[in-house]
């Protein structure tokens, strides 16, 4: 997967969690949590979806690396290179 694919994947998952989420003014370097009003349960959903769709096991200690759209891409790119 490319970085763009990964970003699309993350937004797709967030859309499944909250179909009213508005991505128009999303800043890829600012926390998703603040911009999209996500809570800790929503992040757990993202982790669970990544495991379901791509067999990724993300340890709890790495959750902070999913904070922004760009940090998601940084973190997931090497893990999803063959996906």
């Amino acid at each position, binding site marked *: 997967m490319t970085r763009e694919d990964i970003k699309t994947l993350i937004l797709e998952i967030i859309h499944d*969690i909250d179909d009213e989420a508005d991505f128009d003014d999303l800043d890829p370097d600012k926390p998703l949590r603040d911009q999209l009003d996500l809570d800790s*349960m929503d992040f*757990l*959903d993202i*982790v*669970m979806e990544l*495991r379901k769709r791509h*067999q990724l*096991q993300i340890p709890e200690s790495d959750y902070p690396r999913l904070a922004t759209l760009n940090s998601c891409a940084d973190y997931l790119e090497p893990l999803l290179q063959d996906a």
Partner: protein
Amino acid sequence: MPVPFSEASDAYDAIIIGSGLGGLTTANRLAYCGHKVLLLEYHHKLGGLAAWFKRRGHIFDVSLHGFPYGMVKTCKKYWNREIMNSIVQLKKIVFDNPQFSLETTFDRQDFTSILENRFRIPRQTIEAFFSAVSSMNFYDDQTMTTRELFEQFFPGRTDIHRLLMEPITYANGSTLDDPAITYGIVFSNFMSRGVFTFEGGTDRLIDMMTAELEKNGVTICTRSKVERIVVEKGRVKGVEANGRVIAAKAVVSNSGITNTINNLTDRRAFSEAFLEKAAAIRVNNSSCQVYIGIRKGEQVNDIGDLLFTSSAPEFDSRELLDLHTRSKTFSLYYPKTRPGHDRYTIVASMNSRFEDWQNMDDEQYVGEKELLIERTLDDLTRYLPDIRTKVDWVEAATPRTFNHYTLHTCGTSFGTKFEGLDISRTIFKEIGGLFHVGSVGIIMSGWLGAINYGVIVANDADGYLRSLRG
């Protein structure tokens, strides 16, 4: 519909023991993740403490008293839209005690106005208090107690302490001496939008959840009491129920955490250090309830949806737990609760200690239950003067009743105190594949806490199951 236990297969990916809201949710999430799931419940009905029962045409709800708005998002994400769409607000929350009487929607805006106009607290202090509680997380410092939190913002104001604490004590059994974070998290949840309930009642919710579980392929067996969790070489192998062993790679116990460790699992499978920590778990208190059915055709006035009443001079956690407490809540179920079912019921709830009821002989037990009913009807007469002429069913539940139906240690109706959370979260590190879901640590209790915790534990169990596949 649940299937007979004899129809259950010999092996599953995951077995869930107990069908409280936490167990139901874990089962649903694991099925959603593609696992083969078996749900075993000892009682003939699902729901655990999310219970209801029928008497003479009345339907009584045991624990449907009001949950925070967060339930809307939670039900949408982890159950379905139909369930979400049945959540409605309870707008009339009433307090009546010797210090104050007032009506509120129990949200931040209304509480701000009450604290400012009626209790004469500067707006700045109110904002600072709300900001302090809403930023609390469960991993924050636990050394501050709720009492200290209240003293910091509202020193000496026992009336305000009562306004802030009384509802939460009934919601999760916490006291002024528990960690402030357990208060702050639950209180903030309610303050976001107020108090909500499920239209159609507990029976409809559990029916809808059962249908969703079946749609997702979960096998459900009621009247199936798990006798033990089978552990070999530090990993779960399955469970034994009704004399039969069923294999599973993961077992999620929605039985109480103390039950899970002391009664369901061979204690030798745990480390000494873990058992020592587990022995220090304090279970929370239990409850007494009085269920009052209004004769068909009779009506009662709208006196509010949820009434926090007391004739005790001040809020006192010990007074609330006393066998003869003068403090109780009334939950009123008007016909709007169950559209189409034209009945009124009232449930009075009190916090109570198992020890106070445990050792009574039969005669004393029956006598105390009668006194409990009489005190409750007397209290209710203050709000509904002719209530005694309209009642055609009344009965009481005690901590012994809760113990009988849920098998919870000491009949606890609010799980455990704070330390139970860490034990529940780390049990899988002791025994591979063994997880616990249920009311622990005060914050994971209540309907919303139980469902969300079910999701958190399902994530752990799913991670484990997938790791086995390599």
